[in-house]
């Protein structure tokens, strides 16, 4: 991957994330990796029931799996440039189910220089194979003036 440079970055530049195929197995693996064994992610019978006004119809992927994929995209982009992933805020918009393929992406929104460092704000989103946005949010990356990771 070509390393990015703070001065050359501009609003509208994009970051491409990896495609991720969601399956019952990937969700189960995420249970084991996160220790989040909520029946939302494991139990189809439980998921036949209603959640308030919502019925998911079957197990759903952990929302934090989206978060982990966005974070992976950001660190893979930032680390080669000596930049540091400092913040990520996300909200979930649609459930993700086995059989879906999701992909995170980012768009540079703004750059900011503060008294002691340099920052890049990135709009992030995860879309499914139908082009629906399933998660969205904002990230902040630090580009230390010395380009040294800390």
């Amino acid at each position: 991957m070509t390393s990015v440079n703070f001065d050359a970055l501009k609003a509208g530049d994009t970051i491409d994330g990896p495609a991720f195929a969601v399956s019952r197995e990937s969700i189960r693996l995420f249970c084991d990796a996160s220790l989040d064994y909520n029946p939302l992610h494991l139990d189809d019978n439980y998921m036949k029931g209603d959640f308030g006004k919502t019925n998911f119809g079957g197990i759903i992927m952990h929302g934090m799996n989206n978060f982990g994929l966005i974070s992976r995209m950001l660190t893979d982009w930032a680390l080669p440039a000596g930049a540091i992933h400092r913040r990520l805020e996300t909200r979930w918009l649609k459930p993700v189910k086995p059989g879906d393929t999701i992909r995170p992406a980012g768009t540079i929104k703004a750059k900011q220089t503060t008294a002691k460092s340099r920052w890049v704000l990135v709009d992030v989103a995860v879309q499914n194979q139908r082009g629906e946005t399933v998660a969205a949010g904002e990230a902040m990356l630090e580009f230390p003036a010395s380009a040294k990771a800390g």
Partner: protein
Amino acid sequence: MAQAESSAATPFETDFWKDAKLRKMWDDIVPGEPRKTLPYKLTQEAIALYCRAVGETNPLYLDEAAAKAGPYGGLIAPPAIHILLMFACTPADDWMRSPGTVNAGQSWSYNIPARPGDTITLQARALDKFIKRERLFVVHDNVFFNQHGDVICSGRGQTIRPM
């Protein structure tokens, strides 16, 4: 709040129904009250499993020799390892495990990376709770520390509580 004894001796209970009755409902949750937490020793195996689950391949997390030559001077965990730490550092009766808890959004700030071998501690509380469109929300406030007392990361989240 004082930390409970380490859970190292007891295997992680994966049946979240088992202790469901011990957990606080939305009605019982007091904003501001510290949650009971457990110290957790983060292992390279746990980091590698997390990396596999989200497809992380960066050598900083997985290749000791490469990591040693890198900017952190050794292996680190990916920033989002707090996804695991949240459950690893809370006991079976914690309300994050209530079946039907729906994550409504999160924001996390990262200070320094967690490393394999770190003993991680958590300070956590509900900061707020509210009702919106007939749904019961709790706002979470979490800070993870390493064994030196350094902040690893801090986060705020919202969950919709089961009725």
